[in-house]
């Protein structure tokens, strides 16, 4: 896997859209793997008792999926230099997350592209907003 070539990347380029349906089983697996067992993620009845519509995905699970989407465009995890986002709306178990990204700036001297990135759910909620990623390009 190689990074996209500096000469071939232009402002306005988009990454391949990544859609992934996040089941309760996947959220449970993420809780185990991350050690975050907060009941709002793994106990639907508890989640409802605190005013949520149901169990919600960990924000960092969503961010991990967004990282997958950007890393695929970047030619590998090692070319992803930074990633940031706001967890604006919850992603409920069973929802599909749809990750997108667009190149908004290119630093020719450093060989780095900045992307605006984000994610929405299939129910139309913007779940990850104010997202930015930087990617190392090849020459």
């Amino acid at each position, binding site marked *: 896997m190689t990074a996209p070539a500096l000469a071939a990347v232009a402002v306005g380029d988009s990454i391949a859209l990544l859609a992934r349906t996040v089941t309760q089983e996947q959220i449970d697996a*993420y809780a185990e793997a991350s050690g975050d067992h907060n009941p709002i993620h793994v106990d639907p009845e508890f989640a409802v008792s605190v005013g949520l519509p149901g169990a919600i995905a960990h924000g960092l699970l969503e961010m*991990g999926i967004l990282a997958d989407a950007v890393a695929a465009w970047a030619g590998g*995890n090692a070319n992803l230099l930074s*990633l940031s986002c706001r967890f604006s709306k919850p992603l409920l178990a069973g929802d599909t997350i749809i990750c997108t990204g667009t190149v908004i700036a290119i630093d020719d001297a450093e060989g780095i592209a900045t992307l605006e990135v984000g994610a929405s759910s299939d129910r139309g909620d913007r779940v990850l907003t104010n997202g930015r990623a930087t990617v190392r390009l090849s020459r």
Partner: protein
Amino acid sequence: MPDPSHVGRRYTAPGQQIDAGAAARLADAIAGPDPVREPGAVPPTFAAVYCMAPTLAQLLTDPEVGINLAGLIHGEQTFEWPAPVRPGDVVDASAEITSIESKRGMTFVRLAMEAVRPADQAVVCRGTSLMIVRAAA
């Protein structure tokens, strides 16, 4: 409840092992129904495990800060990866409370965190978190 007097508190978690199996389990959990995109690699957000979790756990159980766990929301996150981290690495994680503000019945706690690999002094991750704490009902 957290208040501005807690700004500057530091939590350290030296000797975090970058375990290949743990990284693979996180990659698998992120992939869900899809194949893991880069088998054998440490997924970028594994920083949640080697940098964030061991320091945040100390903040969340710091009796003097007294965060109400039931009212905790992860609001924002930034990560930078200045140098790649590899399975087998050992890193020292630390985090510091950088600001605390209260408004509209919520407390906004900002943290800065870092993971350094002592073997070559490389910073492998820098991050910031915004944690939003709602008052206990």
